[in-house]
């Protein structure tokens, strides 16, 4: 079994010096760094086996197609999808959700029906539904939150009546770190006949996800947050639902037969993969899934939980510092503010110590309003972080306070 120190050695970027200091990368919730195994997979594929997929009747056409389809299978297994046919490669979570909003929402959500969301959604899981609601005349409802940033289950379940067409929510909040009770929420929604979309962007990189057990109708995630490249992500959809949906993007690959004035659609998942896909990216996303599987997702989960718990405790001890979200059972991140100091200044001064954190609204402006702040600072953790990174973080925050807090 690889030690955490050995795992750190797999990430070349950790050797980069930032302002003369060793890099402490605490922004994995925005995007993760890549291990050599993933980089080599990308290069190796391009150097040896690359061509377009599903077209060329030549050796490289065959090798690329078989690697691309093997990637689909690997990623499907990684999230325990019931079948790989429902696994569509997209550009990422954002595109996956837009696909569902367009191809399912516009067709099946009717005037007067409701779409239930939560106030903690990333803009990617909010704006597509605002547009659907507007286009079809549906109502948006928001599952209320409790003081600590967890969902209020009793109030929420009352929102779920027969008029609800769809429940869309994040598995783990990218700001609060809240881990939502996905299984229970899906069950409640299914009882009233609603479909469910889960935004798994922050969950799949950090915990074992079993799509067969969760029973979501749609589940979306991104490659770049789970050690993979940018430009690749996944929508998993229940095949019978995908089959009934209209295409999203149209063009090559997604068709079966084309006439001058009409066309018929390819079978799923190809029906939703118009044009040349991100082939090398899909192949190296699969390499990322294999890398994580080798470490073991249980172990990855434990590690992230441990760091998050420790960060929460250590940051909470700092005077005038507020940590948001639940104290127990949180995703691998800690979002905070320091009284009287703008988060951008915190991030800029931490950067001087080689510490990379995120500051801003984290694509969750309604949640910022709910918290009553314009922006927050966020430290997020992954497998290449250690407890000593939290020491550096805490020390850098103390320096920031010294420099910027008014006497």
């Amino acid at each position, binding site marked *: 079994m690889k030690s955490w120190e050995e795992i750190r050695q797999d990430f070349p970027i950790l050797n980069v010096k930032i302002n003369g200091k060793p890099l402490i990368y605490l922004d994995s919730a925005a995007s993760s760094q890549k291990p050599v195994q993933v980089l080599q997979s990308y290069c190796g594929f391009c150097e040896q086996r690359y061509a377009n997929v599903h077209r060329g009747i030549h050796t490289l056409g065959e090798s690329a197609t078989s690697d691309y389809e093997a990637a689909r299978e690997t990623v499907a297994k990684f999230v325990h999808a019931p079948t790989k046919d429902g696994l569509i490669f997209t550009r990422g979570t954002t595109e996956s959700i837009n696909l569902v909003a367009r191809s399912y929402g516009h067709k099946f959500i009717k005037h007067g029906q409701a779409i239930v969301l939560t106030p903690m959604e990333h803009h990617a899981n909010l704006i597509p539904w605002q547009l659907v609601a507007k286009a079809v005349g549906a109502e948006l409802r928001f599952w209320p939150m409790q003081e600590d940033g967890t969902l209020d289950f009793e109030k929420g379940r009352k929102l779920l009546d027969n008029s609800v067409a769809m429940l869309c929510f994040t598995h783990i909040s990218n700001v609060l770190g809240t881990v939502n009770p996905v299984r229970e929420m899906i069950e409640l929604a299914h009882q009233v006949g609603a479909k469910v979309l889960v935004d798994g962007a922050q969950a799949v990189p950090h915990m074992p996800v079993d799509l067969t057990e969760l029973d979501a109708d749609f589940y979306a995630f991104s490659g770049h947050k789970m050690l993979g490249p940018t430009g690749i992500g996944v929508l998993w959809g229940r095949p019978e639902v995908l089959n009934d949906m209209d295409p999203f993007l149209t063009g090559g690959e997604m068709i079966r037969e084309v006439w001058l004035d009409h066309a018929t659609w390819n079978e799923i998942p190809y029906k939703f993969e118009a044009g040349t896909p991100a082939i090398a990216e899909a192949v190296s996303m699969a390499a990322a899934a294999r890398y994580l599987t080798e470490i073991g997702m249980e172990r990855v989960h434990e590690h992230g939980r441990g760091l998050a718990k420790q960060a929460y405790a250590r940051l909470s001890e700092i005077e005038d510092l507020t940590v948001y979200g639940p104290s127990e059972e949180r995703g691998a991140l800690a979002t905070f503010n320091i009284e009287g100091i703008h988060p951008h200044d915190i991030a800029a001064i931490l950067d001087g110590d080689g510490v990379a954190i995120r500051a801003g609204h984290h694509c969750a402006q309604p949640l910022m309003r709910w918290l009553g702040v314009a922006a927050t600072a966020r430290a997020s953790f992954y497998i290449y972080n250690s407890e000593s990174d939290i020491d550096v973080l805490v020390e850098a925050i103390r320096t920031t306070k010294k*420099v910027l807090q008014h006497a």
Partner: protein
Amino acid sequence: MPELYSEILLDHYHLPRNKGELPGETLSVEGANPLCGDEITLHLKFEGDVLLNVTFTGKGCAISLASSSMLTEILMGKTITEIQEWIERFKEFIREGKAPDGVDLGDLAALAGIAKLPVRVKCATLPWSTMKEAISRYKGT
């Protein structure tokens, strides 16, 4: 400590010049960077062509607050033409990262490093673009 957070900048941040309301103001103009949550209001008192007094209120990061403080020091007592010249100088300075030839920027020079930080440029620029808006509103009245 990042270069940008120099002594001069921190001095303006901790001891802002001309911060507060301005009784008898001719007009006030609010500028905001919604993405950062910076909100700066300039309060201006004109007599004819001359900016007799200028103060600012609001909240924001150290850069936008210090830049506001510096702006009030520089523009206090200037004519509209001079203010417009300063706005252009400031723009060039932020773009190039150094003072235009023959110009003494005073404390503003402390913001030189911002040219290399595209994400923060809009923080430094906020009070200056608000000033530009104020001048065009004043002239329009």
